[in-house]
């Protein structure tokens, strides 16, 4: 930790992503989460693997960013660093404008609880708790929704109703389908009113149709001002995202918005489903590896 270097400083390259993003939107809103020159190395006895190499990355409020890249490109590492589950070897990290580079475990945990929601590929629901209890889980141990005295159970039930599980409130996870479990997981991610939801292959274990409904859920979340970062292999996700970032060998590249992106789709919430379906058909017809197709370097 002590050897974290600052030699290349935040300027000029470190701010690129942020300024780009800001100019896209036309306002200078503070990034929800920001990585500046973040490098993550894994050292073993024989070799050092660089999982993230001088990454600059920022997410604006309400933005849906998809992170794509081949296996082993550092996507999971990036998500773990963004989610304060892992610490960068070098570089700086900001969460809602606050430097979170050197937090203690307890502070990291607290920041996760307060500001970050997680959605996993395998849903990771606690099998012994009901749907409502699973959603309440992040609020369970220190008495309620972070930063408010709202009743956690009521909020959990409300969130479950909003993701369409109003009739499954007291079901056990084993009684739910994959899509339903993932919606419980989304509700769990939202219970503390986070600024950022991090999703690791959120559609990875779901069929396409179910995956689409989950992605629509993410779009709705973004409409409420919550940012979503999804790490994925699934090209479907990129179509719902505002922006897609490619990660290859630990280096990030912004993907050109050469195709009609999820932005257009998302603008009219009600028609999401049919829209997405259309995209899916046409896209699948051309190639099943969209990443390469649109991978033209700027």
């Amino acid at each position, binding site marked *: 930790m002590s050897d974290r270097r600052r030699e290349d400083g935040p300027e000029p390259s470190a701010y690129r992503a942020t300024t780009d993003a800001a100019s896209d939107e036309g306002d200078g809103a503070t990034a929800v989460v920001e990585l500046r020159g973040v490098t993550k190395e894994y050292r073993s006895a024989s070799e050092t693997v660089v999982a993230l190499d001088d990454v600059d990355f920022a997410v604006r409020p309400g933005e849906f960013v998809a992170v794509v890249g081949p296996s082993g490109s550092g996507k999971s590492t990036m998500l*773990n660093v963004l*989610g304060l*589950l*892992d610490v960068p070897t070098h570089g700086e990290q900001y969460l809602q404008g606050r430097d979170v580079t050197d937090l203690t*475990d*307890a502070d990291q*945990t*607290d920041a*996760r*609880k*307060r500001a*970050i*929601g*997680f959605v*996993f590929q*395998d849903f*990771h629901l*606690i*099998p*012994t*708790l009901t749907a*409502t*209890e699973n959603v*309440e*889980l*992040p609020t*369970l*141990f*220190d008495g309620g929704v*972070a930063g408010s005295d709202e009743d*956690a*159970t009521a909020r959990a039930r409300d969130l479950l109703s909003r993701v369409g599980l109003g009739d499954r409130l007291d079901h056990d996870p084993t009684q739910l389908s994959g899509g339903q479990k993932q919606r419980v997981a989304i509700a*769990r*991610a939202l219970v*503390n009113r986070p600024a950022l939801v991090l999703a690791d292959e959120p559609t990875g274990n779901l069929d396409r149709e179910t995956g689409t409904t989950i992605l629509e859920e993410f779009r709705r979340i973004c409409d409420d001002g919550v940012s979503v970062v999804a790490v994925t292999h699934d090209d479907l996700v990129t179509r719902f995202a505002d922006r897609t970032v490619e990660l290859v060998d630990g280096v990030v590249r912004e993907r050109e918005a050469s195709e009609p992106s999820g932005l257009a789709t998302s603008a009219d919430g009600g028609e999401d489903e049919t829209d997405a379906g259309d995209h899916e058909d046409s896209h699948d017809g051309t190639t099943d590896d969209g990443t390469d197709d649109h991978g033209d370097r700027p």
Partner: protein
Amino acid sequence: MTRFPAVLVARRNLSRNRLRSALAALGIVIGVLAIATLGIFGTVLQLSATNELGDIGNQVIVSPNPDAGSDTLTSRDVREIRRAANGRGTVVPLVASGGVVEAGGDGTFAQLYGTEDPAALFEAQAGDLPRVHRQGAIVGSEVAETLSLSVGSVVEIEGNRYRVVAVLAESESITPVQPDGAVVLPPGEFVQSQPTQVVVQADSGSAATATAEAVRATLNARTDRVQVFELSSILSTIAEFFALLNAFLLGLASISLVVAGVSIFNVMLMSTTERRQEIGVLRAVGVQKGDVLRTLLVEAALLGVVGGLVGALLSGLVAVGLAAFVEQISYDVVFVARNGAFLVGGVVFGVAVSLVSGLYPAWTAASERPVEALRD
């Protein structure tokens, strides 16, 4: 959803694999049952034994020192003994010798005691013990049985005839003044009227010890005029032995509790390893390490509490059964505070063993970095 989330989550986790939890708790049940029951056994044994030995510990026997050339005690000796024992018990001068008791053509050798105050030392089974013994014989149960005597019979001792005024009860405890094979006569019937010993029937073991010390201090101040025999100090040695026996039994029993602890350790280790990812999720969604640790420790403690309570309940039943079905054991040696303490202590010890056993697995699981735990 609850004021004690750790308890709720822990309970749900334990109910996930009921058989495994039940077996882990069973280990504690057996351990606590063993500790509490053996502890209670020890107490019952000790109390029953001290009840048996009770009288011996309360008696001080003062006899003349044969080396001093006298085989009787003088009136002055008796007076001084009375002064020494003042307020601590009853002083009974006793003339003791032996003789043949005959009745209806049969004869038997008997210990002969001469005392004016038989009621202080003996209990009657038939007839009444006279307040002041002036005439007639009081016969011990064995003598009465051998010679088929009852109250009103006539016995002949050394040529004199005595009417039996009472038959003594069979003695239940060990005492140096054995009544069973004895005949108690008025002291005036003996050739030598000076007492050959003085029995002090003290009110308690400690009173007996104090009396013995006082007698030694006054009568044996310059020369050893008397021998003082008292068993209260031996009794405390016996009590020490029982304490040792008790500790030994508890030591044996705690081995089973240690085994139970190992089984809890094993169960907790397995279940936290199985739940590695779940624990990672808890940490990822913002549950602090301490809360995870607490939840896992509550799991171990619940096993201990349930196991301990069941074990103590069974142990209590065993103790009650002991008193109900074993003739020699009475309820008053079972229902004592010390046995209650063994039950409570057994539960406390069981919970403590569970907590200690759960500590390492819980700590390991709670301390694992969520990023490691979530990795498949």
